[in-house]
Structures are given as C-alpha cells and as structure tokens.
C-alpha cells in the first residue's frame, strides 16, 4: 500500500510542464489533485517513473467566463472552488449542481475539474456533463495547443484523446441557449460515492413548447459517457409530453445504452432499470426548467 519510487518535478509554468512532458512522455504522469492518481499509485496499479506536479502552476488556477458567455476552467481549478463560485452558479448552473455529487468535501478541496475529465472514469459525472453541454478541452504540448470536442475526447474506460506529451490545459463549458433546461440525476449508495448510474439532460424548446434539441447522457453504465442519440432524436420536433419522455427514456435503456456491467453493488438489469428511471427524471426536470425559464 505504498507508491513505487518516482522522480518528482514541481514546475511553476505551463512552458516547463509541456517541456517535461515532451522529455518524459510515456513515463510521466501529471499530478493534479491526486485524488484518483494517488489511490492507484498506493495500490501500485500505477507506477509512473516521473510525476509532474502542476499544483504550483498558478497560471492554471482560474475559473472565468468565456467570451461566448460560457465558462472556462484551468487545470488547477478545484471542485470546491467551482462549488462555491457565484460565477459558476450563474453561467454554468449544471456544472455548479454537479459539484456536490462528486466525492466528499475533503476530496473536492484537492480534486480538479480537468483532472476528472482527463481521468475519464466511466462512473464520473463531469465527462457526461461536458458531453451533454457539447463542451471542449484544450490540450497543450510543446509548440502549440488544440481544442478537442467532448465527444471525440472520451474514448473508453480511463481513455481519452490526450497524447502522452499533452497537458489538458483547460476545459470550456458553453453557455445554455435561451429556453433551455438541464438536469443531473444519479443513484449512489452513500452521498459522495461514485454513482451506480446517472443521467444528464440538456434540452431546448421553442416558443410553442416544441422540443428543438435534447441531449441525454448517461454515466456509470458504459465505457465512458453514453450519449443517447435515439432517445434525443425521438424527442425533437414534438411537444415533450410525459408519455414522450417516458418512451424516450425506455428507448435509451433498451437501444442507446449497451448492456451495463455488473458488480457487487448492482446487477446489470438493475443498472438498466436505473437508466430508464433516471433518464426520465432528468428529462422531465430539464424540460420543466426549459419551459419555466426564459433564459
């Protein structure tokens, strides 16, 4: 239960970080909040030869509004900061509502939003939120950086489009358009535990109340965030009645989501049941917000 030896670097600028990544690449790991990396090192499931600690890179410690009215969070923005930020509550209410669902206060004091995205745990809330909002991340390497859309970024269990020499420098959560609503729903065994299953919905309606867009994304039931395309398509173009929402959630559970895994906490069938119930609740809540709020 002790980590294997490693070489430790504590750079203070992004230039140094990407320089170290260029030098060590495959042998190195970024150490952000450490709330996922250090447990796996303690178990020796991970034994990186080099750790690049970004906690002293102050230029990465920001949460700010984007030019488009959305939110930008740097790699050192911690969950607890977003949880208590008025700006996040205003411009990214879905992100704000997600924070208390992530682990416990002590863990949120260290863990970072970008770390949650880079780690890509299939049971994690934030990757699903980024996909639902059609957000992006910026990957930096020596000599340049590129933006990666959420749907391309998450590639499987603990797997992302990030190359070994790239730093996830920041994430961008776009603003919600007018007449849109959002919701996040999950079932966990204990407050703050990883969810058995969860659903994020982001929807939009027109003046007449017809659904013009619906994105329903699940976590905890696949190899990463699962975007329920058929369920979304079934809702667009019609009024989101209770029946249509229930049908869409059933479609998600039966067609969109692959057979969920089984573990000591939940059977595959129970997880599929949760997909339907949580999908329905998330859609209902999101549509209620969309019709109630002239945002």
């Amino acid at each position, binding site marked *: 239960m002790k980590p294997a*030896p490693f070489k430790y670097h504590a750079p203070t600028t992004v230039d140094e970080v990407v320089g170290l990544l260029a030098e060590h690449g495959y042998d190195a790991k970024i150490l952000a909040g450490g709330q996922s990396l250090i447990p796996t090192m303690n178990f020796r499931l991970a034994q990186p030869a080099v750790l690049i600690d970004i906690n002293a890179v102050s230029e990465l410690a920001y949460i700010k509004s984007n030019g488009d009215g959305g939110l930008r969070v740097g790699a050192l923005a911690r969950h607890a900061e977003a949880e208590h930020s008025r700006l996040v509550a205003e411009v990214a209410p879905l992100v704000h509502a997600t924070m208390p669902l992530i682990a*416990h206060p002590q863990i949120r004091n260290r863990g970072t939003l970008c770390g949650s995205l880079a780690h890509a745990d299939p049971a994690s809330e934030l990757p699903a939120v980024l996909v639902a909002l059609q957000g992006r991340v910026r990957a930096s390497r020596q000599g340049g950086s590129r933006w990666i859309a959420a749907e391309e970024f998450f590639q499987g269990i603990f797997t992302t489009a990030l190359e070994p020499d790239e730093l996830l420098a920041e994430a961008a959560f776009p603003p919600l358009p007018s007449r849109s609503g959002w919701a996040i729903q999950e079932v966990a065994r204990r407050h703050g535990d990883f969810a058995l299953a969860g659903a994020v919905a982001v929807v939009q309606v027109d003046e007449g109340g017809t659904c013009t867009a619906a994105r329903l994304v699940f976590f905890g039931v696949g190899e990463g965030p699962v975007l329920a395309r058929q369920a979304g398509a079934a809702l667009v173009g019609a009024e989101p009645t209770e029946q249509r929402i229930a049908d869409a959630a059933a479609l998600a559970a039966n067609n969109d989501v692959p057979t969920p895994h089984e573990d000591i906490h939940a059977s595959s069938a129970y997880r599929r049941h949760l997909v339907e119930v949580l999908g329905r609740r998330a859609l209902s809540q999101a549509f209620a917000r969309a019709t109630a709020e002239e945002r």
Partner: protein
Amino acid sequence: MSEQMTIRVTINGKAYERTVEPRLLLSDFLRHECDLTGTHVGCEHGVCGACTVLFDGLPVRSCLMFAVQAHGHEVTTVEGLAPEAPERLHPLQEAFWEAHGLQCGFCTPGFLMTLVPFLEQNPNPSDEEIREAIAGNLCRCTGYQHIVSAVKLAAAKMHPDPSLRETR
C-alpha cells in the same frame, strides 16, 4: 532508494524540516517523521477519512498527498486542536466526549479535522447538513447517531448565544 528532497512544513504552528523520498505520503510523514501519530491511517485510498488533516486551513486526505507537496505549506493535525490537552480540550472534542461521539476512537481524529472548519462555516447546522459533512468519514462503532449529537452539542458550546449563532 530513490532521490531525497529536503522539505520544510509548518505543522500546528511549528516548523519541521526533514529529508524524505518524494513517494512518502503526507500521512506517513506526519506519523513516522514528525511523531504526530494522532492522524490515523485506515484505507490509504481516500475512502475512510481517518487521515483527514487541515492543509492551508482546508480539510484534505493526508493519504492522498505526498509530503513533498506540503513543502512551504501549513498543516494542522488533531494534536493542533488542543495544545493544552489533556487539561483543556477543544469544544468539539469535549462534545464528542460528553455525547459519546466515539467508542474505539480510531476514526475520531478524522471526524474532528473534518468538522472544525465545517462548524466555523456553519455555526448552527441541521442534522442533514451534519450528515452530509461527515459522509466522507467512516466509523465502524458508533452508528453515527452520537456523532451527529456531538456536533450539535459542539455547535452550542462554540456559539452559546443563539442570536450569535444565527448571524455569524
């Protein structure tokens, strides 16, 4: 043995300088290098909360940080709560004692270090808020009821005037 680094950490107001391997966990640093064995180690993967300490004033898992990351920072452990113990305890410790908030006591340092900052921010918490605040700490003895009672008692002790409790 891998390379060693010399670090300076302020713990409970006192400066400690030690030379350690980067892979040394903060929890082990406190216990083995600084002889501050009040910080307990249960699971070493962030689940039990026994190792909770204040890092620059905020509760964190000391098993999920490396000691080298504390270089130049301030740590408060349970020993720092009551410098005059056992003659004088922190009001939260008194409340745990009086309300039977502990049995074996293994989990207690972690609960205390989680709850001290919580009570500073929430001088008059509801049962639900207390339960949420301690969701990240495991206790195998008490069943949590007495811990919740202890926190309510501590809140009353720390802010005996109810009007003060509302406004602070």
